[in-house]
């Protein structure tokens, strides 16, 4: 595979990983909102 493809995949994985963690935080936040 082309090095640019690998570069894109590696970057995407990092940003998607951070985004998923933010989604997880959002889920926790919604749980508190529901409880109130």
């Amino acid at each position: 595979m082309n090095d640019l493809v690998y570069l894109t995949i590696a970057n995407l994985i990092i940003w998607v990983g951070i985004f998923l963690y933010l989604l997880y935080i959002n889920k926790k936040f919604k749980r508190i909102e529901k409880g109130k």
Partner: protein
Amino acid sequence: MIYFAFFWVAFSIVLSFLYAPPAEGFKGESYRIVFYHVPVAWVSVLAFFLSAYNSFMYLKKKDYLYDIKSKSLISLGLLFSILATISGAIFAKIEWGAYWNWDPRQISITLLLFIYSAYLILRSSIENPRRRANLSSVYALFSFFLVPFLVFVIPRVYFSLHPDLIISSKGKIQMFGPILHTFLANLISFTLIFLLIYKIDWKIDYEIYKKEMSDE
């Protein structure tokens, strides 16, 4: 701070792809992974260090806030270690030909992942809040003693495929010019991302904790 971080992250992404020239000794443009891989690994070590500090503070002051902060930091540290491992494996595939090479750094980061995953398992297995906070703080504090050995000592004692990217054995910085600027910009950018997520995360965890306490 959010706006500044947003601007800075966008700015450093542009730098990584447009400002930094191609580096010598790497296949094609693959070296640009370093701009993300190294800062992510740095942030995970920073998170583990801060978690040890917060655990120590919990044991000293017995304030649950420190324990909650420590838990948030370890979760974030784990996230960034996983990201560093995956991005490193992809970089290894391009440069060294295989995703996994049994390199000392690859092994040490995997050990860190196991050690800190055990922290989260330990936490989730104890119901009593005080007991949970006490035990997990002691565990986090002791785990951190391993971090300097695993991250800094072992990769330098055994033969490693990883270069000493930032400081060579002569103690001189090997990166220079636009590449160094871009690298530092990304280092700041990931530190900002980490600090912002950490701030949101511990505040939410603290709210959950207060709610649990008021329910009991």
